[in-house]
């Protein structure tokens, strides 16, 4: 809101306040006359309205929003005051009801004041005032007359217009500006009073109208601000003056009632915007100058369709101001653009210089941009070469290319002068002046600016023009210098960048290198990645990688052999570079032919400070080249990365090899250990050594006195391996034997130890390694040697493997030999045990049988397989009749014992003589070993003897008892016996004596048979006759038995001793009777056959078991007592019978079946001569 408006509003407020004060005084006068108290109240009200009005005025002076707030506050204050005043007034006016109550008029006044404070329009205020006045004055009408109050005639005329001529009326001036007056027609109060009240109301009305006007002004000011602000923003957004002018014209036309409008900009008199819009001259037109910062930028001319209101003029002014401002800004902008364009060349030159990241390129770019920036034709960079005291043209632009690379003396020309003086030099040349270089002949003027690089003058920028004019201005010189300085900076930046970049590239390449190499798992893989990565990193055409081992080894005379430079790199562990092998004196012509490249970098694979290189990486380029620092730095990185990678891979490989070898050794060791045949072990050793170490042949020799005897060979015929026997002094063996350490010879031919005709060499072997085979006592018992058909350098771990292998081989061999010894010992022991007659039985701590030899099988009839693993106790109980464990108790007891135990086997008594002792078993726990001899037969014989003695004793005593007893009986004196008894006593004495005699005779005969001194008198004997003689005796032997004789009619002559035949027959008949206890017939049959006389004695008795038949003719043999039912005898009868029969050249056997009787058959040689003519022959 403009200050003017604000002042106007404040003025109105003050007027209102003044009106209120006047009203208050009028009221005070009325009140003084009628009601004192009511008058005071009105006074208060009028005062407060006045205060509010003053406040509004003050607020208007300050600010519009405050104004509104205070107006509201004032209205509220007025309302509040009225509210207090009304009751008071009411209480006062009650007794005076006849006259218009001053309280009511006060009420009206306050309502008018309040309404005035908020009324929106003049009409509203006028209606309020008129109505209030009419009501207050009880007038017929109250009129607002558009005439001054003082002009009576006009008043009368106006009143007449309203039909109030002649009616008493009171007129007071109302609006001074508009020249109106307020007229009350036909008021009921006095004129004086009416005038006073009317004056008061007029004042209130004026105040309210002033408030209305003030508010309207404030709103329009705000609208103006908004409109102008919008226009200003719109115009300011335009960059171009013309656009601003056109937009300004359009804005004016759209916002103001104008017919035409034009904007003319100062520098373009004829140009109007919008064109063609020059207002016509005959039209009323307004012109305003567009002023910016004191400068007239142009004119705005417009033709309004009507006179513009104040507001419109204000708007026009302000829009024009905004337009001027926008034009000014646009002009400045445009100026800036022109300035910028002027600087563009320099900026571009600077930018393009700064854009180059390589020093070389910066200088080249400098030469390129300078001529156009300085409106010249060509430029060149001259660099100082102080050592040679010359300048060299390094970069040219616009000059003949022949200038490039040209050198001139340091001191000549503009360049020389600029470098020497360190400041710009301008030179002009006449057409016939000699130029420093022929390419510069056409140059007419030159500007040389010193170029500072790295803080000192290193050269000059020379700008040349082929025309002499207009010459270089100071600005040109300055620009040239500026560009030169820029170039210096750019060069430095580029150099730094280049260095950083190179460093970054090196770092990156190096980390890639490392990453790539880290992938390699083995030497071959590493070799490949190393070659690839090296080639990529250094941009080489080819790369080859050789590890130290290979270089030392087989490459010697091949095309792949390292050249001197590579060996140099290897030896000195530094990167060796040769940019041109062809001209490098370090490279021999032969090497040149061999190396497929023109430039070479030999990078040793070695750590910093390492004592040796692990190999060399050789990078080759097809063309000669120069190696810069970056190349060398990369090569250095490669050196270290490769060394790390090679070391890692070799370590890994060694570990892998070690674990593989260990596994392999373990496997082979197990294989060897599993084989217990020494010959098989030897075969395994050589076969496994060949496969384990990748050899072509293997020989295992064991020491025998002074020779190494080949015990096993693999892969080649024996003679190829040095023959069956080698002296210990053998060249290859001697060192192994002497040092007890493995020895490896890479190249036998080169080694020179072997004679050229050595069989090993002749067999085509080129490498050899031997390891000692240790003996149990720590000495050497042999040598394991492997042979290779090619020169081969065994790795340390391979040599170790060979040694370890030889070790495990020697252990296996010793084990096998030991086992063989043990096995053969065991076999021997087993053989012995198998052959001894004694049963050898071993038991372990659990009494289980662990040994059961052949004799044990025979003695017990229990096969080994049934005995082993069972406990002795169980075996004795279940199979050998040791039911009460008595035998086991004796045998299994602790300590050494020697005793006899009685067992039984298949129902037969088994007597064993046992020696037993504790013996630790294989598990170290105590077991028993028993040696048992079957003494059943011995025991049986002893029993026989014992029985024989008893029997003989009994047999002797029985007849003796009879003889002695009957003799004593006959001699009894206390008893008398009849004659018959006494005769029988004597007969018994005689027969028992005869029996005794026979018994003794038999015993003697047996004794003679034992000594072979049977006295025989051989003569033809008629066996039938003997049988007939014996028959009566036999018949007397038993009453239960019948004797049957079956004899040949003509007798049967045998060549025999008659007495022995008789004895034989008596014995057989006696036996037949004895062993037929139930009686029966005893048949004696004699037959004459062709060569023999057969005598058979058969009974019907108990028979003889098959087993007893075998022993029947043994001395002292008695058939089983149970079977024989206690039949007695001394066991000599059949023994004697057989003895006699065989002595007579005959034979005897028995045919019998148990329970069915027996038949004894005797064959005696038949006599060829009749008995009568027979001769007796004595047989000793």
């Amino acid at each position, binding site marked *: 809101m403009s200050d003017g408006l604000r002042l106007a509003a404040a003025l109105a407020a003050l007027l209102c306040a003044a009106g209120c004060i006047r009203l208050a005084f009028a009221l005070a006068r009325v009140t003084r006359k009628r009601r004192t108290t009511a008058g005071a109240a009105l006074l208060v009200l009028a005062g407060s309205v006045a205060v509010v009005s003053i406040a509004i005025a003050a607020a208007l002076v300050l600010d519009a929003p405050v104004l509104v707030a205070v107006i509201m506050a004032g209205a509220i204050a007025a309302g509040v005051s009225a509210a207090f005043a009304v009751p008071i007034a009411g209480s006062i006016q009650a007794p005076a009801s006849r006259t218009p109550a001053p309280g009511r008029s006060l009420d009206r006044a306050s309502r008018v004041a309040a309404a005035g404070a908020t009324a929106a329009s003049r009409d509203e205020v006028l209606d309020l005032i008129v109505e209030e006045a009419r009501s207050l004055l009880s007038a017929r009408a109250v009129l607002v007359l558009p005439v001054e109050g003082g002009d009576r005639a006009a008043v009368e005329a106006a009143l007449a217009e309203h039909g109030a001529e002649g009616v008493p009326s009171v007129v007071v001036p109302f609006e001074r500006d508009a020249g109106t007056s307020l007229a009350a027609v036909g008021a009921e109060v006095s004129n004086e009073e009416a005038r006073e009240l009317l004056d008061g109301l007029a004042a209130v009305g004026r105040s309210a109208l002033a408030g209305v006007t003030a508010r309207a002004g404030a709103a329009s000011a705000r609208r103006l601000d908004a409109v102008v602000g919008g226009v200003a923003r719109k115009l300011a957004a335009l960059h171009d003056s013309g656009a601003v002018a056109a937009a300004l014209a359009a804005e004016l036309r759209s916002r103001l009632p104008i017919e035409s409008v034009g904007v003319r900009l100062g520098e373009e008199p004829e140009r109007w915007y919008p064109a063609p819009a020059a207002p016509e001259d005959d039209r009323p037109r307004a012109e305003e100058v567009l002023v910016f910062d004191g400068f007239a930028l142009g004119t705005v001319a417009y033709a309004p369709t009507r006179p513009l209101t104040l507001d419109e003029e204000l708007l026009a002014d302000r829009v024009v101001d905004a337009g001027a401002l926008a034009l000014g800004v646009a002009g400045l902008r445009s100026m800036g653009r022109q300035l910028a364009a002027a600087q563009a060349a320099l900026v571009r030159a600077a930018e393009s210089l700064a854009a180059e990241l390589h020093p070389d390129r910066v200088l080249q770019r400098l030469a390129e941009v300078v001529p156009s920036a300085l409106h010249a034709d060509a430029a060149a960079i001259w660099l100082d070469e102080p050592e040679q005291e010359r300048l060299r043209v390094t970069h040219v632009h616009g000059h003949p290319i022949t200038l490039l690379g040209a050198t001139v003396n340091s001191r000549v020309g503009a360049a020389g002068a600029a470098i020497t003086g360190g400041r710009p030099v301008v030179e002009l040349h006449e057409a016939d002046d000699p130029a420093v270089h022929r390419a510069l002949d056409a140059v007419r003027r030159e500007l040389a600016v010193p170029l500072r690089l790295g803080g000192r003058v290193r050269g000059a920028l020379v700008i040349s023009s082929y025309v002499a004019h207009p010459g270089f201005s100071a600005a040109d010189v300055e620009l040239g210098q500026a560009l030169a300085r820029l170039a210096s900076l750019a060069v430095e930046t580029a150099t730094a960048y280049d260095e950083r970049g190179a460093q970054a590239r090196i770092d990156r390449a190096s980390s890639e290198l490392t990453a790539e190499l880290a992938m390699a798992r083995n030497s071959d893989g590493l070799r490949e990645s190393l070659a690839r990565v090296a080639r990529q990193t250094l941009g080489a055409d080819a790369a080859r990688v050789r590890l130290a081992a290979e270089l030392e080894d087989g490459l010697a005379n091949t095309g792949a052999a390292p050249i001197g430079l590579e060996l140099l790199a290897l030896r000195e562990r530094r990167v060796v570079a040769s940019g041109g092998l062809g001209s490098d004196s370090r490279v021999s012509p032969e090497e040149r032919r061999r190396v497929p490249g023109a430039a070479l970098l030999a990078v040793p694979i070695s750590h910093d400070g390492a004592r040796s290189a692990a190999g060399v990486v050789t990078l080759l380029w097809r063309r000669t080249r120069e190696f810069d620092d970056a190349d060398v730095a990369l090569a250095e990185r490669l050196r270290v990365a490769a060394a790390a990678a090679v070391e890692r891979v070799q370590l890994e490989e060694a570990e892998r090899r070690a674990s593989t070898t260990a596994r392999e050794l373990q496997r082979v060791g197990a294989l060897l250990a599993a084989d217990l045949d020494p010959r098989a072990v030897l075969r395994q050793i050589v076969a496994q050594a060949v496969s384990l170490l990748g050899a072509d042949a293997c020989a295992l020799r064991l020491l025998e006195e002074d020779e190494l005897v080949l015990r096993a060979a693999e892969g080649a015929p024996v003679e190829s391996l040095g023959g069956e026997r080698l002296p210990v002094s053998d060249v290859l063996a001697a060192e192994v034997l002497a040092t007890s350490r493995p020895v490896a010879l890479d190249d036998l031919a080169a080694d020179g130890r072997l004679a050229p005709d050595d069989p090993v060499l002749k067999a085509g072997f080129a490498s050899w390694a031997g390891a000692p085979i240790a003996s149990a006592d720590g000495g050497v018992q042999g040598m394991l040697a492997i042979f290779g058909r090619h020169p081969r350098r065994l790795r340390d771990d391979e040599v170790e493997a060979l040694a370890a292998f030889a070790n495990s081989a020697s252990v296996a061999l010793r084990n096998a030999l030991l086992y063989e010894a043990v096995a053969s010992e065991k076999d021997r022991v087993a053989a012995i045990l198998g052959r001894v007659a004694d049963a050898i039985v071993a038991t372990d701590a659990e009494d289980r049988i662990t040994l059961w030899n052949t004799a044990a099988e025979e003695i017990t009839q229990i096969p080994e397989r049934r005995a082993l693993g069972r406990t002795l106790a169980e075996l004795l109980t279940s199979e050998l009749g040791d039911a009460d464990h008595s035998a086991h108790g004796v045998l299994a007891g602790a300590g050494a014992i020697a005793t006899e135990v009685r067992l039984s086997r298949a129902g037969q008594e088994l007597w064993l003589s046992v020696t037993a002792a504790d013996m630790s078993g294989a598990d170290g726990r105590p077991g028993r070993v028993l040696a048992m001899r079957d003494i059943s037969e011995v025991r049986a014989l002893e029993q026989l003897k014992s029985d024989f003695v*008893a029997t003989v*004793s*009994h047999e002797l*005593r*029985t007849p*003796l*008892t*009879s*003889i*002695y*007893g*009957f003799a*004593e*009986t006959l*001699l*009894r004196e*206390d*008893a*008398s*016996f009849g004659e018959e*008894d006494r005769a*029988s*006593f004597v007969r*018994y004495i005689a*027969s*028992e004596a005869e029996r005794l005699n026979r018994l003794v005779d038999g015993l003697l005969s047996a004794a003679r048979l034992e000594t072979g001194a049977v006295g025989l008198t051989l003569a033809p004997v008629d066996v039938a006759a003997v049988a007939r003689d014996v028959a009566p005796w036999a018949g007397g032997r038993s009453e239960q038995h019948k004797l049957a004789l079956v004899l040949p009619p003509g007798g049967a002559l045998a060549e025999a001793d008659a007495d022995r035949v008789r004895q034989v027959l008596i014995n057989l008949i006696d036996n037949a009777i*004895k062993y037929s*206890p139930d009686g029966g017939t005893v048949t004696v049959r004699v037959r004459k056959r062709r060569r023999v006389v057969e005598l058979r004695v058969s009974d019907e008795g108990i028979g003889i078991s098959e087993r007893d038949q075998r022993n029947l003719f043994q001395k002292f043999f008695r058939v089983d007592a149970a079977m*024989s*039912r*206690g*039949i*007695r005898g001394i066991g000599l009868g059949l023994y004697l019978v057989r003895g006699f029969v065989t002595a007579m050249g005959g034979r005897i056997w028995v045919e019998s079946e148990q329970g069915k009787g027996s038949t004894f058959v005797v064959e005696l040689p038949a006599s060829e001569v009749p008995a009568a003519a027979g001769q007796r022959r004595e047989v000793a």
Partner: protein
Amino acid sequence: MAGARILVVDDEPAIRLLCRVNLQADGFAVQEAPDGVAALEIARAWHPELVLLDVMMPGEDGFAVAERIRDDPSLTGTRVMFLTARADIADNERARGTGAVGHVTKPFNPSSLGDEIRAALSR
């Protein structure tokens, strides 16, 4: 004691005769048996005070016969005296187990046999 019944068991007829004539001469009542089976049969029927029993007999030997006499409840009053050619009978456990009252070793003096039997029967 005179008139006691004596059973003589021996497989030898000569020995039986020898014992019988002498014991009868000494006033004993005597019967003879050639083997164990016959001996037991007679003993059970006749209940002799004493059986003079030969040890070595065919079939059952003297010990077996003695055991059967011992074990026969009807023969509790019958004692056994062995007649044997073996001198070691005194040490023979089996003989002792039979509860025999004594033994006579062959050869013996028949005139004193009666006295020995009387002595044994009186123990």
